[in-house]
């Protein structure tokens, strides 16, 4: 597992004027999961067209928003915008940004996906920086230039938790500018996690993830971000993070997790019950007036139930895995032409 590696934050300097050479052999889908936050759709899309001019022409722009998104996109098209294919996707407000991201990724066809916020369009420098920064990485995520400036207890707690659980820190998980291989995005988002945690999932699964500084005003948070200063949001985010950690760590071996909880409970129950039974056999006490006996048996029952849930989990993993491949091959090198084409 590539968890011990230090976070890679690339320098903001030396961004080449690489132009179209950055994207010679791969197609790009642009995903805007929060298109509802965009006030002027036409201006937003034109800004991207201008920013990407000479760098890359995307295969499509997928715009996910609430009811009325199709009409908004139709108006832009009617206004003569024919730079690339526009794919409107409507979703309910309740579905939220995480579901919107998943929907958009399911529709994407490009080799690469550029995820951007709907609130403010990115500049040419940002787009170029992300494309250049991708290099050998599987995913690059933007970091607001002033991410280090803002502090506070809640942010420190989050960073501490991420460091402890995932072995590396991310300076700005809330930045919406991300570029990566489509397969990495879809595999990471398939767990149904908060879209903020996509880099964590990708990193956990061994993909190369890198952070890349981008201008602060573009990475600035939208008005209704999860980072809104309310304790409830932070509490939920932390719980989600904890759940993500448990799921990732024990997804393949649920019994390891459930046994770690159930075995000590079961052991404690056996100790208590055993002590009382021995005491009763030695005529030291009666069982009828010992509530501890009920507690001991309760512990045994609970322990068995928790371990049994783990065993059911193991059977689920076994039945679902025995017919599916648990690996993905990048390429096969062999002089034998039959092999190379497998």
């Amino acid at each position, binding site marked *: 597992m590539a968890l011990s590696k230090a976070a890679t934050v690339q320098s903001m300097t030396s961004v080449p004027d690489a132009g179209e050479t950055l994207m010679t052999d791969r197609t790009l889908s642009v995903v805007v999961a929060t298109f509802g936050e965009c006030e002027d759709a036409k201006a937003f899309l034109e800004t991207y067209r201008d920013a990407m001019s000479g760098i890359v022409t995307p295969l499509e722009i997928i715009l996910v928003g609430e009811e009325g998104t199709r009409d908004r996109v139709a108006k832009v098209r009617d206004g003569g915008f024919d730079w690339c294919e526009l794919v409107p996707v409507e979703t309910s407000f309740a579905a939220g940004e995480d579901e919107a991201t998943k929907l958009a990724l399911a529709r994407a066809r490009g080799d690469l996906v550029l995820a951007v916020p709907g609130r403010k369009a990115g500049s040419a420098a940002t787009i170029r920086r992300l494309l250049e920064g991708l290099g050998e990485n599987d995913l690059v995520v933007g970091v607001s230039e002033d991410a280090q400036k803002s502090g506070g207890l809640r942010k420190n707690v989050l960073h501490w938790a991420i460091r402890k659980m995932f072995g590396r820190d991310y300076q700005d998980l809330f930045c919406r500018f991300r570029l990566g291989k489509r397969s990495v995005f879809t595999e990471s988002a398939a767990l149904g996690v908060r879209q903020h945690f996509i880099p964590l999932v990708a990193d956990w*699964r061994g993909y190369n993830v890198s952070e890349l500084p981008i201008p602060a005003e573009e990475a600035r948070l939208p008005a209704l971000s999860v980072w809104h200063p309310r304790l409830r949001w932070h509490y939920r985010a932390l719980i989600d993070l904890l759940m993500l950690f448990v799921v990732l760590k024990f997804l393949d071996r649920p019994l390891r997790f459930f046994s770690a909880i159930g075995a000590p409970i079961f052991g404690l129950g056996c100790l208590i019950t055993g002590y009382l039974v021995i005491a009763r056999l030695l005529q030291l006490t009666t069982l*009828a007036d010992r509530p501890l*006996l009920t507690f001991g048996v309760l512990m045994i029952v609970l322990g*068995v139930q928790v371990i049994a849930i783990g065993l059911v989990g193991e*059977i689920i993993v076994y*039945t679902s895995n025995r017919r599916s491949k648990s690996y*993905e091959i990048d390429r096969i090198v*062999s002089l034998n032409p039959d092999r190379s084409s497998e």
Partner: protein
Amino acid sequence: MGHRRPDISIIVPAYNEEGAIALLYEQVVANVEPDFPNFELIVVDDGSKDRTFEILEELAQKDERLVVVKFLRNFGQTPSMAAGIDLARGPILVTLDADLQNDPADIPALVAKVKEGYDLAVGYRIRRQDKFFTRKLPSIIANRLIGKVTGLPIRDNGCSLKAYRAEVIKRVPLYSDMHRFIPSMSIPSGVSVAEVGVRHHARQFGESKYGLFRIYRVFFDLLAVRLILTFSARPLACFSGLFAISFAATAGFVIAALTSNADSNVVFSTLAVLSGSLTVFLVSAGVIVGLMQDGARTRAPDTRQYSVAD
């Protein structure tokens, strides 16, 4: 050489083994070629961060018997082994680690055992070159435990040098860290197993990817293997043992509650309710497992319940 089916396939998972991999290739060729010139060596690069893949790529340009598989990312040893097994074309498959602690000179002896008629030839390390307390002692305990629980007493489950009949190993489901339990997981296929003493060398390159903490993992993995073996044999009986105990306890507590005095009555009634709830839970779990088995059977491509007429 034509592209006919190889005599044996040797599968080597490799992760960050730039120091050892070229030497391993040379040793495999030197030791296997005299007996089996038409072998294939499948090295699975499990997303190495060092030059392992580049070195292998160079070697593969010179020898068509070498097949290099590069994973998209680091998946782990079991998926690496599974990929090698899936791609292998030989009738006999041999697995070994890339760290050169196994000696490729032992491969012919293992293959000979399979040719004798055994389905699996499992190596056990003679004079193992590892630390006693952190590696050898946990291994001894784990092997005894595995033998007791699975009913297949193998001296050294941790030795990666093994040879398999292809049709047997290709049927074994491999996921998570199950590569340690391949012989045990083969039990439902009714395998015959032979043990062969093999050489073992001290680690010269890289670092060990295991530690003392694996005892804890092995213990719970073993519990899972036991369950899977039971599940494979009698899917509806997974929880029957626990259910039997729980049901008997409930019945006992109910009888005790009915026959005891007023003070004891409360205690025994409470215990009867607790063990009764456990009984209901275990029945429910058993039914769910049975339903899953049924779902898995109907999804499996090789268990069609119909045949197509000519």
